[in-house]
């Protein structure tokens, strides 16, 4: 029982990371009805940026802030330069462009920073906080950071005019344009935010999985599973889905063996798509022929 509790709690910590990446995916999905396969690699690249800044002597939180801002700008640029010209193409072309981005980020990171695995510092103390036996302080700290990011995103979308404009642009682009919302820029902003959230997730997960160009592969898969489980058009659902997947991953790892963790994500994805494609909290879409 103690083991189960321990695994479930540390599952919550990794689940927080999946939740952030899932949230980033949902943000782009909501705005454009696309799934960004390059999300994980963009986050990985941002994490390398943070690492280089720290190597250059910038203090941790300074590097953190610079990276998040740079990731935001990078996300906006990618949307404007790479995605926007093919926006109205068939899904196949878009998926191929995203795969192209994935491959480019992965190989450029390998080219610049080599494929050697690098340790990444954690900003949180070595000793477990508050004398608890279950969670390391990095687990607690990263969960806290994730929760802060999630609430910031919630507040932004719920209570700011810009957030309202972005939601409007995603829901009904034509009407939004008629009332003066610049839909194209709202999409770019969505990409920027998603990229920034991804950067936070990357920096938080790097101390656990270590820094290397392929570090986000598995995480992206779990994030997909979480986003689909919660409902790919529901930010709250995706976050919850991310946490559920994190806990499931750890608990199943104990009882079934850790070799099948990725397969579990596959089973979740296919299972959700077969049984309830809209996810737990997603809207069921009815298409009119």
């Amino acid at each position, binding site marked *: 029982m103690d083991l189960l509790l321990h695994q479930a709690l540390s599952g919550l910590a990794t689940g927080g990371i999946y939740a952030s990446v899932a949230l980033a995916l949902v943000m782009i999905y909501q705005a454009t009805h696309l*799934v960004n396969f390059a999300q994980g690699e963009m986050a990985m690249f941002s994490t390398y940026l943070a690492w280089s800044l720290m190597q250059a002597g910038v203090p941790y939180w300074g590097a953190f802030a610079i990276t998040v801002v740079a990731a935001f700008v990078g996300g906006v640029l990618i949307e404007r330069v790479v995605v926007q010209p093919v926006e109205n193409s068939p899904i196949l072309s878009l998926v191929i462009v995203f795969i192209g981005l994935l491959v*480019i980020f992965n190989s450029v990171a390998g080219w610049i920073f080599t494929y050697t695995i690098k340790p990444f510092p954690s900003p949180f103390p070595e000793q477990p906080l508050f004398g608890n036996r279950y969670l390391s302080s990095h687990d607690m700290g990263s969960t806290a950071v994730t929760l802060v990011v999630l609430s910031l995103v919630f507040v932004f979308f719920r209570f700011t005019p810009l957030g309202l404009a972005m939601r409007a642009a995603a829901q009904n682009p034509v009407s939004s344009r008629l009332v003066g919302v610049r839909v194209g820029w709202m999409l770019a902003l969505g990409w920027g935010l998603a990229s920034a959230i991804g950067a936070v997730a990357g920096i938080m997960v790097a101390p656990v999985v270590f820094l290397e160009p392929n570090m986000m592969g598995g995480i992206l898969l779990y994030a997909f599973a979480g986003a689909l489980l919660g409902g790919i058009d529901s930010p709250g659902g995706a976050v919850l889905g991310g946490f559920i997947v994190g806990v499931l991953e750890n608990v199943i790892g104990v009882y079934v063996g850790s070799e099948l963790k990725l*397969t579990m994500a*596959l089973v979740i994805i296919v299972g959700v798509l077969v049984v309830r494609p809209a996810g737990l909290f997603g809207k069921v879409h009815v298409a009119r022929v």
Partner: protein
Amino acid sequence: MKTPPLLSAVPALTSRHIAALAVLLALACALPFLIGNYRVFQLTLALVYAIALLGLNMLTGYNGQISLGHGAFYAIGAYTAAILMDHNVLPYWATIPVAGIVCLVIGFLFGLPALRLEGLYLALATFALGVAMPQILKHNSIEPWTGGSQGIVITKPDPPAWLPVSQDQWLYMFTLAWTVLLFFAAWNLLRGRIGRALVAIRDQPVAAQAMGVNTALYKSLAFGVSALYTGIAGALGAIAVQFVAPDSFSFFLSITFVVGVVVGGLASISGALYGALFIVFIPNIADQISKAAPWAIYGVFLIGLMYLMPSGVAGAIRIARRRWFDRERPSAAQRAASPPARDVQV
């Protein structure tokens, strides 16, 4: 533009095409005697990839279903062949159809739920399959057969005693025979009713269903046949490389296939050959710059082609040929193009 009496998903073969194909085949047969053994091995690999790309292209190019996990089917085919040979169940040549059938069944079964998964969702599910496959292959419960992460070493088949060729040349011939057979089968499958149904489902799914096309059946069949081709390629590839291990079938193998299909040309049979040559020889050249360079080039090609030439190399060749052909005989082209235009004006 010339319109054939019945719409067909692939161009019909004229006598000129057949003559050109015969010359090409003769060249392909002569080639292994003119170059070194390593080059022969590379060409064998290119043929293997051409079969896999053709399979993926039938699914993605003709039927419009996106698969990011075809490396998994390639792996299943390779492992089927390797296990059957390793346990001396079947000789090497008999493992190929078995691998194909195993993949056909698995692909069809995976295709059944995939029916409900449109576009992006299918891409997601197959992405998960591609990422998870190496882990499944490493699992303890099947280790007696798969050899775990060590993989299986296969002995290279000997050529028949009456044929004075080296092992590499024989393997090339063997693969070439399968390639010709499978390319002909694909052309035959796509040129008639089935090919038309696949393209109709891709372009107008609702209209196709209204016209009586059994969308569900054709989509899962397309997935099954596509997996069959990829599985056969996997088996041939395993014999050519003489080794299978979980890590040679990583997610990036699936992406390599997507790159090959896009570069060669979506919805084109000949495109599979161009794509295969690209994915075999470009990394060889680019590796000299950096270990990461082939992938950077792949990525740039993927995005660049989507902007500039969505129909790939095959499309570029088609356009060039049409331009050259039209200049040669402008009257024929004009005659074919004019009647519909007149109808519209009346």
